[in-house]
Structure formats: C-alpha cells, structure tokens
C-alpha cells in the first residue's frame, strides 16, 4: 500500500505545483498577449473607433446652408432620409447594385475558383497569382480602363460598329450597366480568393466516390461539389456585396452622375454641399445596412453548416 501511495502523493503534489505554475504562466502570458495587442488596439482606437464615434456624434448635429454645422442633438438628419422616398430609392438602388454585382461576380468567379482549388498542376500557385494579379492595380486605374473599353468610341462599340452589327453606339457607360460591369471585374479577385479559402471541405475523393457509385458528372456537381462549396460561395457573395454597396469610385466614374447610390450621395453631401451631419447620418444608415446583412449571413452559414 505504502509503496503504491508514495508515488501517488508525489504525483498529487506535482499536479498542484504544476497547476499553480500553469496559472502563473497563464497570467504572465495574458499580460504578454495584452501588451502585444496594445499597439494594434490603440491603432484601431485612433484610426477606427474615434472617427466612428465622431461620425455618429456628427450625425446628430444639424447641417445649415454653407456648410455650417450646428452643434445640437437632433434626429432630423435621420428622419429626413427615412421619410423621403428619394433616399429610399437610393438605398434600394444601392442594395440592388450590391446583389446584382454579388451574384454576377460569384457566377463568373466560381468556375475559376473551382478550377484553381481542384487543380493539381505544378503551376497552381502561379495561376492563383495571375487570378488575383488585378489587385496590384488600383480600382481607379481599372475603372478608367473600363471607361476606355465601354465608351461611345470604346473598344466594344467600335468593334461592333466595325463589324456592322450596330449603327449607333450602345450606351454601356454613364449608367448602371457600366457600373455593374466594372464592379464585377474589379471584385472578381476578392471573390476568387474568398471561394478558394471557403472550399475547405471540397475534396476530389468525395467526387470520385460519388462517381464510382454511379452518379453522373452533373449529379456529382449538383449533389456533392455545389453543396460543399456553398459556404465559399456565400462568403464570396457577402464580401462582394459589402464591397459593392460601399464602393464609391466606380459608381462615380462609370455612373456619369446618373447612378445615385449611398456612397455617391455621401460624397456629394460631404464635399459638394458640405452637409456633414446629413452625410454622417447616411453613413450610419449604410453601416446599419452592413450589420443587418452580416447578421443574415451568419444565420445562413449556421444553417448550411449545421
């Protein structure tokens, strides 16, 4: 008995000591983590939390003509857009643009992402790099590129006219069509990246197994590949949607003043009409819209995941 007890007692002592030691280490670790996090948190505080708080406070001020900001606490800045059909239309247009761009972008990016995710080629890394290479060029430059391609005398119109297919140039720019085309291309690399990282559960073995059990290629795709890649598709859609509804440059440059979305409206109010409180209120509305979408997305992914 004693022979057996001694090692156990020793073990117990060691356990307790180790527990204390672990706790001390944990405390020290926590301090270290906190210290390491501090620069980042401070950075976020200065660059994100403070401006956001300032913007929210600004949205309750009153904007007088000439850019005068009357320090007060009013809900007028919110009541105005929420009761004005024009701003409902702008919000709806923004939402519609986000959904359209999101769907189209996912549709055109999906085959590319699927190919890249399944590829076993030794050039896979290079191919992925090529797919996301457009990110190296700024969205402004790419938007200008689209202006050249889609313009009245642009590549598409002059080719179609040259081929005798059209007499008058198609209106491909300075409207929502141009903005949609531009945005889909600009956000493709993001969608591809989001999908590749979201295709985690996709494996060729599962497809092979389905095939060996007699499923046709189409069935393999609809019953195995597509459901397994759905989380990736959803993530890509959400990412593109969020980017699209907050984007400013492309609707501004390719919209020709005819595309009025929340971002262009905020820009006009801020820099053109100098109504910062109103612009801040619109920004908060946009932010709330983001929040709602993300909440819906999380519900959806939980459903799909569960």
């Amino acid at each position, binding site marked *: 008995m004693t022979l057996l007890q001694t090692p156990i007692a020793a073990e117990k002592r060691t356990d307790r000591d180790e527990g204390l030691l672990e706790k001390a280490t944990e405390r020290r670790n926590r301090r270290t983590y906190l210290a*390491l996090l501090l620069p980042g948190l401070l950075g976020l505080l200065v660059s994100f939390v403070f401006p956001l708080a300032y913007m929210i406070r600004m949205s309750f001020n009153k904007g007088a*003509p000439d850019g005068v*900001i009357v320090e007060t606490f009013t809900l007028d800045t919110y009541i105005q857009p929420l009761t004005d059909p024009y701003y409902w239309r702008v919000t709806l247009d923004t939402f519609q643009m986000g959904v359209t761009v999101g769907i189209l972008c996912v549709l055109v990016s999906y085959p590319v992402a699927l190919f890249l995710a399944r590829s076993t080629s030794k050039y896979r890394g290079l191919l992925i790099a090529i797919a996301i290479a457009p990110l190296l060029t700024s969205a402004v430059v790419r938007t200008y590129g689209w202006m050249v391609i889609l313009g*009245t005398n642009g590549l598409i119109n002059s080719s179609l006219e040259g081929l005798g297919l059209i007499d008058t140039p198609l*209106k491909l720019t300075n409207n*929502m069509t141009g903005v949609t085309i531009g945005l889909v291309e600009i956000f493709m690399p993001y969608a591809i990246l989001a999908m590749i990282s979201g295709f985690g559960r996709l494996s060729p073995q599962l497809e092979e197994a389905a095939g060996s059990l007699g499923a046709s290629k189409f069935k393999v795709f609809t019953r195995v590949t597509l459901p397994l890649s759905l989380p990736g598709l959803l993530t890509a859609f959400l990412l593109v949607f969020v980017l699209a509804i907050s984007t400013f440059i492309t609707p*501004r440059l390719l919209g*020709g003043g005819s595309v009025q979305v929340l971002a262009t409206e905020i820009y006009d109010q801020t*820099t053109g*009409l100098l109504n910062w409180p109103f612009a801040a209120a619109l920004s908060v509305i946009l932010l709330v819209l983001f929040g709602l979408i993300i909440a819906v997305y999380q519900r959806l992914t939980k459903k799909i995941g569960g």
Partner: protein
Amino acid sequence: MRATIKGKITAVAALSAAALVLSGCGGGAGAASNDSATSGEVNLIAYSGVWQDQYTAAVIEPFKAKYPDIKINYASKRSSAEMLSALQGQKTNPATDVAIMDNSVSTTGNKQGLFEKVDAAGVPNLANVPEKFRDKDGYGPVAMLDAVGLVYDTATFPQAPESWDVLWDPAYAGKINVNAPPSLLGLSLTAITAKMAGEDYTKGIDAAVTRLKEMAPGVQTFAPNPDEYQNVITGQTVLGLGQNARGQFYSDQSNKKMGVTFPKEGTVYQINTINVVKDAPHSAAAKTFVDYALSAEAQTAFAKALFYAPSVSNAELPADVKARVVPTDGSLNIVPLDVEFLSSARDKWTDIWKRQIITK
C-alpha cells in the same frame, strides 16, 4: 531566460504603443510659429491638376526666386468645397495660411470666421485691385476671374455655336456632357436657362427645370470623366459645359480639336478669391505671398499660362492673351449669380437636379 525574452517583448510592445500614441496625437504640438514676412513657409490650399501645374510655374516658382527663404507648401483640392471642408476641420488649430477658392465658397468662409481681413498696409498691391473686385467687408479680394463657357468639338462645329440652345438640338443628343450641381457649372447653367426662359431665378426655376428636363435625355453624362474637356477632345461628346480658362488651355493642348465660346444669352462669372486664414501659423509670410499673387507680374504670368483674367488694374496682357480671357470691362453679357443667393440655393437646386432632371 524565457521570462527575460517575454519581458523584452512586453517592453517593446509598450514602447511601440507609446510611440503610436505620440505620433497619433502629437501632430499639432510641433507646429512652432515662425512668423516672418521674408522667411519661413506658407501653406497654400488651392485647386489641383492643370491649375496647380500652371499656378506653380507662373506664380509660385517666380515667387520662390524672389523670396528664396519662403517655402510654399501646396495642398491641392479638387474643389473649393473640399478646401472649405479642410479649413473647417482645422478651425481651432489652423495649419493653412492662404486659400485660393471660388468666391461663393470663400464668402461662406468669411461668414464662418475662417479668414481674416486684409488691408493695403499688409498687402500693398491691394491698392491695384479695383473696388468691384474687393470684398465689401475687407476680406480676401478677387485673385482671378473666369466664366462658364460652351465647350465644343471643332470638327463638328467649324464655327463656334452662338447660342446655348444647341444643347437642346436633337442632332447632338447623346453627345453632350453637363456637369450637374453642386458643380458650379451646373448651377450656372440653371441660372442661364432661367434667364433664357424669362424667369427670375431668385423667385423660382420652374420654367428652367422644364427646359432642363427636355435636355436631360440627350445628356450622355452628368459627371464627365476624366473631365468635361477630355470628353470632347477624345470624341466621347461634342458639346459640354466648361470653364473658359481651362477650355482655352486644353484647346491649345489638343491642337484646337476643342474650342470654347461664350454664347450670346450670357454666362456666369467664376471668380476666385485669395484669402488669408484667420490665426494662420505664418501670417506675415502669407501676406507677402498674397501681395505677390496680386502683383501685375504674377497676374500677367497666370493669364498667359491658364487664361484667367487678372483682378488688378495694372496688369497688361498681350493682345492675343487678352482676346482669350474673359472680359471684365462690361463687354460680355453676364448672368449675375449672386453668391449670397447661391449659398442658399445650392442645396435646393442640387436636389431638384437629382430628383427631377437627371435621367437614369
């Protein structure tokens, strides 16, 4: 050993946090005042692009040659409204000394107490600025003048169009660019259209709106990009609104592929004022710069470079330049667009354009 490394990491992290706080919040602390009329620096805020290039070459470089100890820091903005935003943001701790901006916006700045009054004691060349180009309360005077013009493709129009009516001509539908308000060009077109419809725009613009609605379907873009001139030069459009000064400049640049004219129904002045910021960090050097900007030498050089009309009476322009800058002697039919009125109408007119005129 582990503890020492961790301690070091903690120390480094704390130090970087402290550095971040210092760099983030200490911006204003180092702005020591160095106020001298002949040395130091002047922080100027003015227009970007070709305006900045030409103003730098015609005015700032010669100024620097004359006052080698004054450094000019040029902060460029796309519009006067953006300049005003920047100045409003710095109101409690001004970082800018001089602002050159549209008078409709500088009037707002004057009202908001962003600028200080200038007099001939601080700015001797103010004596050469005629009364009509001085602010009645003594704030920044007019620095240069221009006017809204009709920009056209010279291949389509070998003769410059005579009337603004050409914008309504179905023959050019789809080939027109019009800058919608809040752009000053669009606000000016609204006033011009009201005048053409026999309407007093200060009382209402219903008739103008009806006319502009008729024009809108033929407009290709309400926000021309890269700008209103390049659109015509590259053949995207054949007609558009534009400013005379830049229009003249780009006409030369494009080898006369584009022209600019003042139609007979009249046009609206676009006036820039030069303003000294209140409590400017380099107030004395700022006044030296403003004085130079109002010198006959600087005014003539800028007129030659970018075709802005001088605001001083002693600037002598060569005949070929004079013919291309906007006349300020009363010979041009001008639609007066009162800045006081404009500041109250800007929001309303912009709203009307967005809701009623701009087509999708």
